[in-house]
């Protein structure tokens, strides 16, 4: 099947839905495609916590204060143009969502803003109870329903972007439920595919977060930036099995009620790692030190049974737990968890990706006609992200990308050619029915490799081993899928996922190996300090089919404050 449109948006999370709405508002025809259901496949619908914007509803605030906090967290690597855009446009998007009845929690006559770690004042809005992401998704889906000119197509996995004469002109996709190959001609293409945390064994990812968009961009000839910076959340939920809760939920608990971290011998261990005196006033250890402490206790054989640490709230009276988190306590009870009687287990989990497609202020990549937004881009958050910035970024950059893509599409002629699409169309037809090893197992192997060798704490030796192993797995995967053309074919999906995941895994490992310092989310055991000379971004491209690394220019501090 062949379809034509002005703007093709790939991925229907917060960023993609916003992009589609803005592109349609500007008068362009839009196809919004998602490999899953519209508005349900990625991180947006799963986020249960907060969204940061300098609304000044709770206390006086300005976007400049939000920017200062964002840049501080980014440890010198932020693209300040993008960071400023995030902070400056954020309030307008949050108010637009409010007008669309998302239902931000209110106190009296104003929107409630809470004080989240890393922010200098109460700045984060939310929807009660733990409904931020679902409410955001539902609200944007409703707007899509009301808009005209947007065709939404679920079950449509984009396999490659089509480029002709150096310009993006469409895409090739597999329609999962029918097994059909679909070609899409588009004057502008927007990558809004979210992050890559499915690359890791322990993660907060959905099935669709293997980093497709980064691989799509690379193969289209675009550049990726800051790919070594994967954010690990130190106390992600590990055990007992818990369904229906955001795995980062323990953060507000710990912040408000002071949970105690215990090792497998039920001993507190944070003090032992606090010798460098780093202390943020609320925890004994900062987030990166907590990740370090838990990882080292596990390595030393003092982990909890599931391989993390215990988190205890047993010192907190039941009444106080209820007062602080009543409805959540009920949800925990439905999972058979009673915090007054038992410990839970937590561990560092891969949670968000700072790196991504390198874009300019119009959200255009280095390939004309190819745009990106949301978690799929790099730059706004530098080496580490402030909590609450990711959803704001999805709205702000989504809207910008939609506007730019529409503007381009309305003034350009189609560059589409079937010939330019044929390598991918042929790939999908080339299925070579063979006995492959189980590719679902290969995915698990890759996740273990990334966790063990390209995790939160890295060394030269581990990273080199990872790269060798990724290359071996890439060779094993072969050049053609083992199956295709069937309706909802899990073997084809695994093969296409691995094709992307391996390329993206290497795009993380290669710059991590080169960066011989520790900064933000990139921590090297063999290079523990931050090095001024490394105040620069690294750029990844594809060269002859393999990942190539380039060092960007040194980022000089702006003269003014």
């Amino acid at each position, binding site marked *: 099947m062949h379809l034509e449109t002005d703007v093709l948006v790939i991925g229907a999370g917060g960023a993609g839905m916003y992009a589609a709405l803005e592109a349609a508002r500007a008068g362009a025809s839009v196809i919004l495609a998602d490999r899953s259901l519209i508005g349900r496949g990625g991180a947006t*619908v799963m986020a249960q916590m907060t969204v940061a914007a300098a609304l000044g509803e709770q206390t006086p605030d300005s976007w400049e204060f939000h920017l200062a906090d964002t840049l501080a967290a980014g440890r010198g690597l932020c693209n300040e143009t993008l960071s400023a855009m995030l902070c400056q446009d954020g309030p307008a998007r949050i108010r637009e969502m409010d007008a669309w009845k998302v239902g931000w929690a209110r106190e009296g006559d104003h929107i409630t803003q809470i004080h989240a770690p890393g922010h200098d004042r109460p700045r984060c809005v939310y929807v009660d109870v733990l409904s931020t992401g679902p409410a955001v998704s539902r609200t944007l889906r409703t707007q899509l329903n009301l808009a005209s000119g947007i065709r939404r197509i679920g079950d449509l996995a984009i396999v490659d972007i089509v480029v002709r004469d150096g310009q993006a002109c469409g895409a090739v996709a597999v329609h999962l439920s029918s097994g059909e190959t679909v070609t899409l001609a588009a004057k502008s293409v927007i990558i809004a595919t979210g992050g890559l945390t499915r690359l890791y064994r322990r993660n907060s990812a*959905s099935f*669709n977060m293997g980093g497709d968009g980064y691989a799509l961009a690379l193969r289209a000839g675009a550049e990726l930036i800051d790919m070594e910076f994967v954010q690990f959340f130190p106390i992600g939920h590990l055990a007992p*099995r818990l369904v229906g809760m955001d795995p980062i939920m323990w953060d507000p608990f710990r912040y408000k009620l002071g949970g105690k971290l215990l090792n497998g011998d039920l001993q507190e261990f944070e003090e032992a790692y606090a010798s460098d005196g780093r202390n943020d006033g609320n925890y004994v250890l900062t987030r990166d030190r907590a990740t370090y402490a838990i990882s080292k206790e596990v390595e030393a054989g003092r982990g909890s049974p599931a391989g993390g640490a215990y988190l205890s709230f047993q010192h907190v009276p039941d009444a106080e737990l209820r007062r602080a988190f009543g409805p959540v306590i009920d949800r925990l009870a439905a999972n058979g968890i009673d915090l007054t009687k038992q410990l839970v287990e937590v561990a560092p989990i891969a949670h968000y990706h700072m790196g991504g497609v390198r874009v300019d202020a119009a959200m255009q990549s280095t390939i004309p006609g190819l745009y990106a937004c949301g978690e799929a881009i790099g730059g706004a958050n530098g080496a580490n992200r402030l909590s609450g910035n990711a959803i704001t970024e999805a709205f702000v950059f989504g809207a910008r990308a939609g506007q730019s893509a529409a503007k381009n599409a309305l003034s350009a002629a189609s560059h589409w050619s079937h010939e330019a699409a044929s390598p991918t169309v042929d790939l999908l037809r080339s299925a070579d029915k063979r006995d492959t090893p189980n590719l679902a197992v290969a995915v698990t192997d890759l996740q273990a490799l990334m966790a063990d060798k390209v995790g939160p704490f890295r060394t030269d030796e581990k990273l080199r081993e990872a790269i060798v192993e990724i290359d071996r797995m890439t060779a094993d995967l072969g050049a053609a899928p083992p199956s295709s053309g069937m309706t*909802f074919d899990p073997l084809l999906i695994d093969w296409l996922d691995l094709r992307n995941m391996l390329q993206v895994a290497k795009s993380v490992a290669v710059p991590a190996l080169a960066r011989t310092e520790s900064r933000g989310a990139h921590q090297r055991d063999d290079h523990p300090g931050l090095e001024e000379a490394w105040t620069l971004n690294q750029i990844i491209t594809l060269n002859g089919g393999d990942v190539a690394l380039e060092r960007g220019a040194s980022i000089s501090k702006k003269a003014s404050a």
Partner: protein
Amino acid sequence: MKATLEIKRGTPAAPQHVETFVVPFEPGQSILDGLRAVRHDTDPTLAFRFACINANACKECMMLIDGKVDYACTVKLKEGVTTLAPLPKKALVRDLVTEIAPPDERLHGRG
């Protein structure tokens, strides 16, 4: 502990049949965990829909579990037999996968 999953498989083109898989599990694990274990340990061709895995946010893993419509991620694995079948009132795609998207979000068969 071991759970026995009796899964109705097939496509509209071929008659449906039941296949049985035994999966080891720990208390608290979900039917969805069990289905993922089947793909990983025994049969990677088994088709079922899911996205978010733990959050019960995507609502894609709905199926017929012991005769009742429910989410595979919220129903726990149990010892003994659990029967799994595709949603009866939705068009069958393959195995446990049915056409669940609203008509105006589909490639084909738009209202």
